[in-house]
């Protein structure tokens, strides 16, 4: 096919020319095109992209060719007396019909691929993906595994205090693990604002919309680590909530699920443990840094006008009950959402931390919250 030929031309001639032309040859200068996918669908999408691209190039070359020829040959100097012709019905009909046919030739294969993408049968594995400001939650519906994935790039890298790592802004604290060769279905939604879950290697981009569930599916045969991003503006850390999927063989997947379940059991045991203030503080600080710091800031000072300060806040100082309630229920009509998806231990720790840090312990009642307080809160109230 001519399109293959053109692609070869691109690879064998145009790219090497670019190499010669560029005095600053680095790998990234060649990040010029979409990368070929790793699934059947994403390969088809890539082919469609290249097809439409080359059609556009051909149209461009033809139109600009005639235009540049005119600009060269029909200048006032070379052609002092302009021609008089105008309107030519045959020509006008031709340049209406021919583009129309080209469009149909493109729209048909595109529609076919789309029908395949829209297959909505259940998957072997179904994962609910929920967008939060600014992290993703993954819940494996069959295997009962659930976790959050946060950006793991250090703030110092972002603020240029230390060199940036290889996977700068494309790394998370916990990868989504899926088995190779199985049909995986993602049920995509959001908790606060609209996000969008984009995994280029699978050609999946689905908006995560609060109150709605969108679906997408994939079958990946090739084990590996694949990286994607949030693609719908979702507030200040929109650029800082990447997606990383790790595709592994079935056996490794089973082992991962087993380990995740063990972890969950250990975490549950922590609820009944006796906690000291120092232990809660230490644990709470880590949770604060992952979940709260984006809005309430490192010193609990918040951002005037949008995100209230926690340092010196009346609730954090003297109102333990209200403090728990806000974390459990969120604040109606404001950016503060419910954090009831955190475990009892995590909630107790982070509330304790915010009641102790930044001088709050000295200025207020300094009361701590233990996991049991959260358990009690969750008890049905009669």
């Amino acid at each position, binding site marked *: 096919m001519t399109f293959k030929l053109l692609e070869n031309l691109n690879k064998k001639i145009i790219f090497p020319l670019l190499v010669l032309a560029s005095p600053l040859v680095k790998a990234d200068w060649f*990040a010029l095109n979409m990368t070929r996918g790793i699934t059947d669908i994403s390969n088809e999408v890539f082919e469609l992209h290249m097809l439409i691209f080359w059609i556009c190039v051909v149209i461009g070359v033809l139109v600009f060719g005639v235009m540049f020829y005119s*600009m060269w040959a029909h200048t006032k100097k070379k052609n002092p007396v302009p021609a008089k012709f105008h309107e030519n019905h045959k020509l006008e009909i031709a340049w209406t019909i021919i583009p129309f046919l080209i469009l149909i030739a493109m729209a048909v294969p595109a529609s076919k691929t*789309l029908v395949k993408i829209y297959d909505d049968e259940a998957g072997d594995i179904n994962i609910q993906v929920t967008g939060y400001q600014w992290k993703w939650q993954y819940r494996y519906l069959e295997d009962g595994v659930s976790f959050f994935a946060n950006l793991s790039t250090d703030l110092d890298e972002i603020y240029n205090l230390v060199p940036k790592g290889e996977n700068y802004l494309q790394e998370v604290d916990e990868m989504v693990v899926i088995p190779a060769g199985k049909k995986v279905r993602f049920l995509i939604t959001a908790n606060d604002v609209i996000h969008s879950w984009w995994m280029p290697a699978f050609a999946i981009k689905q908006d995560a919309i609060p109150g709605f569930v969108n679906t997408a599916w994939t079958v990946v045969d090739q084990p590996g680590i694949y990286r994607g991003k949030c693609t719908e503006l979702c507030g200040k850390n929109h650029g800082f909530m990447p997606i990383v999927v790790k595709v592994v063989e079935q056996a490794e997947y089973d082992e991962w699920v087993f380990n995740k379940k063990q972890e969950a059991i250990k975490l549950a045991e922590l609820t009944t443990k006796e906690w000291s203030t120092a232990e809660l503080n230490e644990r709470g600080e880590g949770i604060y840094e992952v979940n709260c710091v984006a809005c309430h800031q490192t010193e609990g000072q918040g951002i005037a006008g949008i995100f209230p300060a926690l340092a010196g806040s009346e609730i954090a100082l003297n109102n333990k009950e209200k403090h728990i309630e806000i974390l459990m229920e969120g604040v109606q009509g404001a950016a503060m959402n419910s954090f009831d998806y955190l475990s009892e231990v995590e909630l107790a720790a982070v509330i304790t931390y915010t009641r102790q840090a930044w001088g709050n312990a000295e200025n207020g009642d300094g009361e701590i919250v233990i996991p049991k307080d959260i358990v009690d809160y969750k008890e049905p109230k009669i």
Partner: protein
Amino acid sequence: MSAVIENHHEDHHHGPAKGITRWLYTTNHKDIGTLYLWFSFAMFLIGGAMAMVIRAELFQPGMQIVEPEFYNQMITLHGLIMIFGGVMPAFVGLANWLVPMMIGAPDMALPRMNNLSFWILPFAFFILLSSLFMEGGAPNFGWTFYAPLSTTYAPPSVTFFIFSVHIMGASSIMGAINVVVTIMNMRAPGVGLMKMPLFVWSWLITAYLLIAVMPVLAGAVTMMLMDIHFGTSFFNAAGGGDPVLFQHIFWFFGHPEVYIMILPAFGIVSHIIETFSRKQLFGYSSMVWAMLSIAILSFVVWAHHMFTVGLPLAAEIFFMWATMLIAVPTGVKVFNWVATMFRGSITFETPMLFALAFVVLFTIGGLSGLMLAIVPADFQYHDTYFVVAHFHYVLVPGAIFSIMAAVYYWIPKWTGNMYDERLGKLHFWLSFTGVNVTFFPQHFIGLAGMPRRYPDYALQFADWNMVSSVGAFLFGFSQLLFLFIVLKTVMGGKKATAQVWEGAKGLEWSVASPAPYHTFSTPPKID
């Protein structure tokens, strides 16, 4: 109509009032046109300065200059100011100056409303810009202000933003009504609809689009206002509302809005290519029909901005096909321009250079638009820099180049002086280079996978982002040269003849340069 002309005859030779009141109280279409043009240029510089902040932050990976929160305010205000403050008022200014002169009318049909529609605009933008200094900062949800980011999660300044959009909308609707009424009622005898200059046709269609969709925008922001302050849940899923509904309403406004920003450009470019090719436009009536088809189709393609929200398959296919269909009339326009040049007698003055660059670069933007219409491929392009490259190609070397071309083309008629051709060409080449160096690499960045509206990015996007920033600074600073050229032309220069350009045709070239304060107080004779 003749009675009106009689009354005006008394003060025919009166010039404008003196001092500031000339501008505050004016009902003269030329004065109001000038006000609109200067206002839009001021907004272009402010919106441009914001673009410079954006590109400076993106010059390197990492956060250097601004915080993500402020970055989001910059992208939001940049978009709003360039669209509602830069491009739209510039076209209204051109319509004010040119439509009455092109159809042989003494002024706009509704001169007092004309004054009002301009003078509320500075207030709208004062309110919008003042939000930068409010607690919580300026709107930070992107110029498309998707709910619920723009409602429940918005900074308090969103209410001022809503009020400001209402004022802009009122101004646009008044301006559009004025254009329609003028064109429908005040054409000189003999100027039939199919004899109107294409710029007039393009504005007639644009005005109808504005009247159709600005109220939709007003509805969208009013629903936001209700959600924020009065407890409704139009866009709040928790209250039974639908965040996607917002996008449907917004893009039902938004897509025709895109053509509002390009149809007048089609008109301008047609005139300029005809003039400097010294040859009649190839197909006048097919150009008119193409614009009408584009305008009508613009109402049935809005969901192509929303291919990833989870529309049903049938909707995706319908909107894909409908969108691709727009390429047909758009192609007709491009082919017409090329056919007009073919075997013409071409010269390359500054307006022609801008018009030719328009044809080439707008076509590139149109072709990438065609790529974006392919739904499965759009799943990869959507909300990446590929989209940013696409719409900047149609808006900057598209809409904005056409405005610059128009200024160079008609400024001798406005001021009576020729601009400095050498500087004009320099301005063109700097802008042309700047635009391409800025936006062409954004295609690469987008295809390689960088999402739009990101204040920071992964390392593989670093090189082309740096190139893009360098281009942006070049383009940005070149516009100060444009300001200088315009000021120099206003102050003086070689005197222009009434005809100005050898190949120019149309009624505006039959009056003296500069155009007298009142033109066509008696209707011209049309052969």
